[in-house]
């Protein structure tokens, strides 16, 4: 089954659906860039990291299907990014890489593991928000977005959307309830 919408890419991966390289790129680019920063990669190296991770995951094909026997996708992706990042560091010219630098990035580095947990959680949250947009009424989402993300006061949101202040709080409550449900359904959370 081809996967075409962003609605549940994580779920599609988990369910073994075909995922296009572009969907994967759009969804995971920020996470890969962030991980590149954890490995102190330069901007050019981070771009290379994106390419290398995409090629590793898709094996050069336009679409890929995640092999469930590889375990949890979150762990698989962490490993791929980590290995490609270390490969990029190793490739640095002029012998700029000392063994000490590479020793900072073993497969199981508690600081890097902790950073990954936080980054993955933030990634899932941002994906859940995308799913929320498709699951609640447009006005509910707009009220929630303005109140929570744009930090407008409930009265400002109510005036802007021409609704009662009470309804802004109702929208917030509905959105949070839906978000928690979406988070439970997303793999890895």
């Amino acid at each position, binding site marked *: 089954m081809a996967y075409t919408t962003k609605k549940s890419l994580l779920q599609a991966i988990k369910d073994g659906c075909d995922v296009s*390289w*572009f969907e994967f*790129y*759009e969804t995971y*680019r*920020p*996470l890969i*860039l*962030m991980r590149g920063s954890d490995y102190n990669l330069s901007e050019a190296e981070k*771009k290379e990291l*994106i*390419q290398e991770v*995409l*090629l590793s995951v*898709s094996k*050069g094909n*336009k679409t890929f299907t995640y092999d469930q026997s590889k375990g949890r996708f979150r762990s698989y992706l962490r490993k791929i990014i980590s290995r490609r990042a270390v490969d990029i560091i190793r490739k640095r010219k002029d012998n700029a890489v000392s063994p000490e630098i590479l020793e900072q990035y073993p497969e199981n580095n508690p600081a890097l593991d902790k950073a990954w947990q936080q980054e993955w*959680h*933030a*990634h899932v*949250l*941002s994906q*859940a*928000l995308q799913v929320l947009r498709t699951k609640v009424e447009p006005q509910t989402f707009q009220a929630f977005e303005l109140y*929570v*993300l744009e*930090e407008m006061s*409930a*009265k400002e949101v109510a005036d802007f959307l021409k609704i009662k*202040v*009470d309804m802004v*709080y*109702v929208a*917030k*409550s509905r959105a*949070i309830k839906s*978000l*928690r449900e979406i988070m439970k359904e997303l793999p890895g959370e």
Partner: protein
Amino acid sequence: MKHYTQEQLDQYKHGDMSIIGKLTCKMHLCFCQKCSDQLRTISEDDSFMSELKNAVKTFDVPPDEKELKTLCSIFKDDTIGHSTSA
């Protein structure tokens, strides 16, 4: 005893109640365990919202047309519009 709704307690917590409404709610909370517990869950929700806000800010990375063009060429994919936000 009549309890407050989650939305009413949220309004109380964020100062969106009238002065009289606020005082009445405050008195009610002094002896109502159920509404006090509900108020605590609203605080948890607010922490959750704060996490969400930070996540959205962190993942708000501007698209890179050049990078996308390179990838389209690597994957030999001419179906992706380069103006598509990444």
